[in-house]
């Protein structure tokens, strides 16, 4: 009876087939099973992953120390390749963060109900990814302890930042993005922290969660303002996320380097960001929903929808590649054409073909429902997409720089161990934060899932009933 009810309610969306929530749930069971992974003692798998991630963070600390002691010379950057791994990693991480905002804000505005179970997770990813991203330009300044020079403050030097530079736009864009994402995430968390506070068994837990819950008591007078505030923050985050990657792409597009100076960069970067971000969410969600026991709220329908978005954004990215090459040829500009010819035939062609394989070919598999609903396929594809998107940024940055206008200045870039350790270290740091998040904070937005459950159960009977499978 319960299953029938759920299936009937779900069939109201004529195109929906798989349910958004499995089994008959109510507020009590949801409180129990969504918070269970927070109360459970960490198991061996978590501890082992955490140790590996923590060693990654340690490696990051080591690489940062070497960079600070020796200077940027510890990296493989040279003239003409002044930007290499650092900016590649920066753009890659920022892009990964964008899926979080897309899921939490844009899908919220479009009232996509399937967003509810995965938004908390993706927002956390945004925050951690932006933290990793910010590290690279900071270190690349060479003297990060003077990084505050970039902010407009009345200094004794009597100088102000130069606001006509895209690099200063970036400072404002990334710091605003981080701040707004954090506020949005925390605002959404408050009811769940209160839920943790009041479901906790020990005094310590009650106190710690109590501090962060700010005394939330589910008051109707609070919800009244809270709902509006949350909606407005979602509304603001939506153009913000587009602006951030647009400004990141301006770092390149506003310059005069062939291969960078193109008008397609802003939309092409935003599409790439969403593409890689969804892939990263997928790479984490597939194991997390298994190990945290969240399969009843993060269902196959969620995963399938995400794969559809990966396919759509993958096509957008492919279109970007196509237009970039077409315009390079059509413009008749020999420098522009040379860059693209060199990408496919030059010394970095391996990275270029890997990029094409991962970003253009791999997502095509999601045309097939069997692939969209197969856990191993989507997991491997999501990893490949992440690899591909990293390659894309490497190709854009390094291949455009290493062949300067003057053949006499041509040079090759090879990463040093410090470059590689920094990159792998940020993956470790990201994983450390993410594993801590999965341990101490509910991985799904409990309050929102309860509201969704209520809606699913009380949805009015549809006029045209489509028989549910």
């Amino acid at each position, binding site marked *: 009876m319960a299953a029938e009810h759920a299936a009937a309610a779900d069939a109201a969306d004529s195109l929906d087939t798989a349910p958004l929530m499995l089994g008959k749930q109510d*507020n009590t069971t949801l*409180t129990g099973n969504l918070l269970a992974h927070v109360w459970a003692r960490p198991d061996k798998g978590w501890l082992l992953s955490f140790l590996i991630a923590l060693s990654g963070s340690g490696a990051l600390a080591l690489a940062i120390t070497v960079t600070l002691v020796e200077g940027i010379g510890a990296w493989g950057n040279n003239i003409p390749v002044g930007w290499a791994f650092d900016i590649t990693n920066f753009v890659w991480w920022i892009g990964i963060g964008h899926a979080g905002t897309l899921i939490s804000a844009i899908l919220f505005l479009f009232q996509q109900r399937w967003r509810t179970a995965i938004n908390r997770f993706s927002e956390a990813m945004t925050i951690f990814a932006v933290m990793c991203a910010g590290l690279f330009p900071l270190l690349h300044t060479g003297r990060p302890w003077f990084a505050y020079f970039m902010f407009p403050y009345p200094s004794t030097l009597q100088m*102000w930042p130069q*606001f*006509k530079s895209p690099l200063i736009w970036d400072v404002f864009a990334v710091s*605003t993005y981080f*701040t707004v994402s954090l*506020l949005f995430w925390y605002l959404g968390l408050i009811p769940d922290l209160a839920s943790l506070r009041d479901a906790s068994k020990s005094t310590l837990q009650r106190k710690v969660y109590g501090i962060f819950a700010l005394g939330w*008591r589910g008051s109707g007078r609070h919800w009244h303002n809270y709902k509006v505030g949350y909606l407005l923050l979602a509304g603001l985050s939506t153009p913000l996320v587009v602006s951030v990657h647009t400004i990141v792409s301006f770092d390149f597009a506003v310059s005069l380097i062939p291969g960078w100076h193109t008008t397609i960069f802003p939309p092409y970067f935003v599409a790439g960001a969403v593409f890689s971000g969804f892939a990263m969410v997928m790479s984490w969600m597939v194991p997390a929903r298994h190990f945290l026991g969240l399969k009843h709220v993060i269902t196959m329908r969620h995963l399938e929808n995400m794969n559809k978005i990966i396919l759509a954004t993958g096509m957008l990215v492919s279109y970007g590649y196509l237009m970039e090459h077409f315009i390079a040829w059509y413009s008749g500009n020999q420098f522009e054409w040379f860059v693209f010819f060199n990408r496919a035939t030059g010394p970095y062609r391996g990275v270029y073909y890997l990029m094409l394989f991962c970003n253009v070919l791999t997502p095509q598999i999601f045309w097939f429902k069997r692939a969209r609903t197969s856990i191993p396929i989507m997991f491997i594809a999501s990893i490949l997409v992440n690899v591909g998107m990293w390659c894309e940024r490497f190709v854009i940055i390094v291949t455009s720089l290493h062949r300067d206008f003057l053949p006499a200045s041509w040079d090759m870039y090879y990463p040093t161990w410090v470059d590689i350790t920094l990159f792998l270290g940020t993956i470790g740091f990201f994983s450390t934060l993410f594993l801590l998040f999965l341990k101490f904070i509910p991985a799904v937005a409990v309050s929102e899932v309860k509201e969704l459950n209520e809606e699913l159960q009380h949805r009015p009977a549809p006029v045209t009933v489509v028989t549910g499978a």
Partner: protein
Amino acid sequence: MEHAAEHAAPVGKTFVLGRFPSGEALVDACYKVREKGFDAIDTHSPYPLHGGDEALGLGRSRVPRIALTGGLTGMFGGYLMMVYMNAFSWPLNVGGRPPHAPPSFIPITFETTVLLASLSIFFGLLALMRLPQPYHAVFEHEGFRSAVNDGFWLSVALPPGADGKDASALLQQLGAKEISTVQESME
């Protein structure tokens, strides 16, 4: 002794609490309780109730105006900041571009607009909700811990001196369970 106690400590606010079986029952009860003249009521639920704002008689939220104020401040503040710094205080000639270069100032103007609007929403919300407020009289009742998990509670704030018997009786009549009267601890 009794006499001394009465005058020594100020009396905290008193609330009557009652738990309803569902969100709809709680929303219905709100209308009925308000009909009887209890206006200082509040609902407590794990998620926003459908029709809860109307049931409590709440008007339009002030948050949009706060957001607009913050956004406009960020927009004009950000733009004027750049004009002052790059065109008046320290005009810099970068590649012959004019010191006051509107197109180049747009991206940061946008970012400061969003930043200030978001900060004002967040802190404006906290101010409107009077949070953080770690202690509230309703937490005196142990069963109230369900309010953020699976309970639907109604709280009626009593005027000073009232014993709350009429409110309790009304909640009882409306089908509330776990009815109790809590008093703010003044310690």
